């Protein structure tokens, strides 16, 4: 049986039970027919059944609809007792109690349909337990009416005491429900309050009325006369619950105008970054955030281009991906209470899709700017640290050697009379001078390779390979390229070989330069220990900046134990 057929059958059953109720009410000859109460009575049941059926159809996965239908049908069952049958009486008594337990269940789980805490589970379990025990236990001691199929042992005291205890327990549960609803309302976010509005408007009143009616009817508590009289009609407050909840669950149509306003607002807005604010206001969730996946797929950014982390599933935030042709345009991050209004979220997101695509493009642009700014800052920092390194090298290397020469010459002068001593000192001074010149040359080469400027990349790479501490094979095309490309390619090879010497423990390395599709590809491969991490070390970071400054890309593959492959692609069209 399909769900539609089942709902149709239940609707028919509800109507039939209404008709049966009217017929039965006329079949008790000794009592006058109280049409007003019959109308209220049937009205309550039908309000539950009809609201439940509509909610069920609109939200098939949400159990609130089914619970409402069940409550309505169960309530009708209390009519059967007029047949004067013992089992029918049992059904009547249990039915009346189960109706209240089902209503309590609905109040606790609305709107999501789930039990969220131990307290909520306890309240619902207590309501069902009370529904059964509150009827079965006192009647086991009650011989005051027939036919009582539950009767075991006659004890009027037990009937009174136990009955009163269960009634008090029911009143406590009713008041707990009031406290629960009010607390959820008070602690709720704006979307949560909007979702809870139908409940806060009806459930506390109905619970208080039901508790008062119980106190009045069963425990003999007297209020003022008008209140006592009004309690006889208290069921009406219960009937309002399903209708209000139905409105709450199916507000979609009411959202249409809100979404239309959003469209107008987005059209008027010159600044697409306003879209977050507009969506937040439309959905009534000030905490709403937007995340735009970058085209590279590497990260998400907000509308300002700053990197954002998507919250983990189950982390107290709800996510909706907005896709266009299978590609995620934006991710909405919002209060999970909005999950109760999927149509609103979908409609608003759909209305904002075009603007969101624009915002995504702008966010991507901003993200690039953010990265460019960071990259520029890193270049400056790297430049500064490089200057410091040069200064230290000059002090510790060349300058110390020249100082040595100065001291040696000073000594030679003081030994001018001793020819052998002077000769030895001059020889040392010459050696020191030689070393100093070597170091200065190396230093100058490190600052800028003259060979690269004079003879091009192939010659400079060959010289670099000759100076390397391990055998390095170089393959590069002849000819000249744009200076910036040659320099970037040279520094990629030079930094990679420096890293090979420092960290890789390799026996061989190869530098291969090729040209394809208007790009120069530099690959440096070694057979060392691998495990290099591009995120570590300023050298590789600096290289990436240099390569990306030319719109190129740098890739590092360095599995532990599997050698290292550094590949730079430099557009040079």
């Amino acid at each position, binding site marked *: 049986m399909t769900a539609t057929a089942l709902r149709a059958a239940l609707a028919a059953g509800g109507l039939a039970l209404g008709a049966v109720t009217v017929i039965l009410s006329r079949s008790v000859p000794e009592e006058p027919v109280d049409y007003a109460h019959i109308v209220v009575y049937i009205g309550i049941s039908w309000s539950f059944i009809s609201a439940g059926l509509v909610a069920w159809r609109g939200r098939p996965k949400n159990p609130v609809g089914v619970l409402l239908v069940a409550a309505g049908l169960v309530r009708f069952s209390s009519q059967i007792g007029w047949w004067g049958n013992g089992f029918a009486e049992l059904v009547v008594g249990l039915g009346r109690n189960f109706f209240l337990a089902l209503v309590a269940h609905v109040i606790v789980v609305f709107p999501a349909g789930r039990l969220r805490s131990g307290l909520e589970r306890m309240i619902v379990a207590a309501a069902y337990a009370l529904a059964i025990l509150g009827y079965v236990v006192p009647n086991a001691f009650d011989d005051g009416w027939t036919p009582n199929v539950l009767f075991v042992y006659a004890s009027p005291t037990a009937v009174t005491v136990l009955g009163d205890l269960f009634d008090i327990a029911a009143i406590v549960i009713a008041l707990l429900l009031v406290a629960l609803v009010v607390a959820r309302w008070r602690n709720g976010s704006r979307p949560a309050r909007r979702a809870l509005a139908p409940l806060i408007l009806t459930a506390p009143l109905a619970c208080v009325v039901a508790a008062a009616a119980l106190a009045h009817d069963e425990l003999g508590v007297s209020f003022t006369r008008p209140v006592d009289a009004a309690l006889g009609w208290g069921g009406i407050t219960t009937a309002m619950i399903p209708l209000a909840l139905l409105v709450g669950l199916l507000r979609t149509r009411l959202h249409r105008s809100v979404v239309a306003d959003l469209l107008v607002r987005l059209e008027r807005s010159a600044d697409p970054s306003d879209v977050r604010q507009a969506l937040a206001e439309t959905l009534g969730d000030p905490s709403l955030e937007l995340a735009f996946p970058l085209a590279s797929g590497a990260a998400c950014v907000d509308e300002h281009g700053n990197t954002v982390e998507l919250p983990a599933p189950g982390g107290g935030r709800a996510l909706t991906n907005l896709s266009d042709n299978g590609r995620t345009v934006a991710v909405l991050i919002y209060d999970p209470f909005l999950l109760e209004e999927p149509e609103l979220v979908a409609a608003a997101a759909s209305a904002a899709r075009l603007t969101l695509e624009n915002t995504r493009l702008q966010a991507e642009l901003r993200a690039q700017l953010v990265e460019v700014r960071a990259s520029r800052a890193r270049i400056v920092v790297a430049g500064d640290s490089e200057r410091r390194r040069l200064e230290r090298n000059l002090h510790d290397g060349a*300058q*110390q050697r020249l*100082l*040595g020469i*100065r001291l040696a010459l*000073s*000594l030679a002068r003081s030994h001018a009379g001793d020819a052998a001593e002077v000769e030895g000192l001059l020889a040392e001074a010459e050696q*020191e001078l030689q070393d100093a010149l070597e170091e200065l040359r190396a230093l100058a080469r490190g600052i800028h390779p003259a060979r690269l400027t004079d003879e091009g990349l192939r010659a400079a790479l060959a010289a670099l390979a000759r100076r390397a501490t391990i055998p390095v094979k170089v393959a590069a095309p002849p000819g000249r390229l744009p200076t910036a490309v040659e320099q970037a390619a040279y520094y990629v090879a030079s930094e990679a070989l420096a890293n090979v010497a420092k960290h890789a423990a390799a026996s061989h390395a190869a530098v291969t330069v090729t040209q394809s599709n208007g790009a120069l590809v530099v690959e440096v491969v070694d057979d060392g220990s691998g495990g290099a991490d591009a995120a570590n070390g300023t050298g590789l970071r600096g290289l990436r900046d240099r390569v990306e400054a030319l719109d190129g890309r740098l890739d590092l593959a360095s599995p532990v134990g599997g050698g290292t492959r550094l590949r730079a692609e430099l557009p040079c069209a």
Partner: protein
Amino acid sequence: MATTVLIVDDHAVFRRFAHRLLEADGFDVIGEAADGSSAVELARALRPQVVLLDIVLPDVDGFAVADSLAAAAPSSSVVLTSSRDADDFGERLHHTSARGFIHKHDLSAARLWALIEAA
């Protein structure tokens, strides 16, 4: 008796020539150290009359070493030296416990004597 000297510098070239330069002019170089901590140990053991102390050292800087020496070998006169200009060290040179500062370029026995005797 010749004045005893401990030379502290992380550059072997400088130590070698300073050693010979000072000995040629009548000092007695009784030890060499390449960093601050071994300088303090050597000074405590050898009790040199003069410690020629480089400011830029690999472990601690010369100012800190001078303070340690003031406690470890209070009889030693500490003279700071560096290949950097005195300006590079600013106020620290004025507040040091060392006797004075000689730029490495200007190192000679005469300059060293002048500083020691000025005290």
